[in-house]
């Protein structure tokens, strides 16, 4: 296998991590909605934590994207 094809395959594999982060972000918002509908009075106070959880989950997906880009444009 030559370098260019290995590079593209590697970038594609690294992009799987973005999908995994999508599951994480969906989980964060899904769980928030589920519990917010059970106790709507407490929901507004937890928005800060919601976004912290979202940021933490999203960061890992963004890192996967950065890794894919680094692999794709490596010389």
């Amino acid at each position, binding site marked *: 296998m030559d370098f260019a094809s290995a590079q593209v395959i590697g970038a594609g594999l690294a992009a799987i991590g973005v999908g995994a982060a999508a599951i994480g972000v969906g989980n964060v918002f899904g769980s928030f909605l589920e519990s917010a509908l059970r106790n709507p009075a407490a929901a507004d106070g937890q928005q800060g934590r919601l*976004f912290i959880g979202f940021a933490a989950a*999203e960061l890992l997906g963004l890192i996967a*994207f*950065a890794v894919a*880009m680094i692999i794709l*444009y490596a010389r």
Partner: protein
Amino acid sequence: MAEAGKIDPMHQFTVEPIVPLHIGGYDISFTNSSLWLFIALALLMGFFMLGSKRELVPGRWQMAAEGVTGFVDNMVKVNIGPEGKKFMPYIFSLFTFILVANFLGLFPLAIIPGLHQFTTTSHFSITGVLAVLSFSMVLIVGFWRHKLHFFSLFVPHGTPIVMVPLIFLVELLSFMVRPFSLGLRLFVAMIAGHILMEVFGSFIVSGLSGGPIGWGVSALSFLFIIFVTLLELLVCAIQAYVFALLTTLYLNDAINLH
């Protein structure tokens, strides 16, 4: 990117000098990056000058400016407490500046020929500086208020003695990674969105010359890009909010310890 044809999705991020300026071997040219930073600054200043005339009956601009100020003020109050009042200007500048810079990058100005706007927050040199600013503020405030007690931040209450060295190392590591994660999140989110939009924009253009199937691809890409643009507007706001929120949380750690 051999597949994308002539359209290079990374080209939009190139920094080009507008007024070349070299002093003592350093390149300090006035670039398109600096130009768009200044435009963001000018827009912000204009908005808040219009909005802070202190009228007794607030007009539209003042209501908008007060809304933004109240939002940030509330966030700082909830997360830090009454002592956060003096950090409110910094958080406010961070939030509004990142928000305006993000939105400027999405503005469809490129339909005017020859005008290419530049997303300043899509470069780690700018988000990284903002993140280091926040991080050094946390360090200075922490050591100023608590002297060497600041290190107790790394040992949560009720940790068993045996576990202290290990927990200390883990907490220290997670503390040191903060500036990187803060800067990286904003810059990668911006880059990813803009590359996505550019790639699907190129699908629309190259699909037009591909017969009926190509037209189908074009139409689908067009619908998709509308969706992505809306998503990107959301992401811009969320990233600015998350940056400001995380800065307040880190400051809260430094002010109130645990």
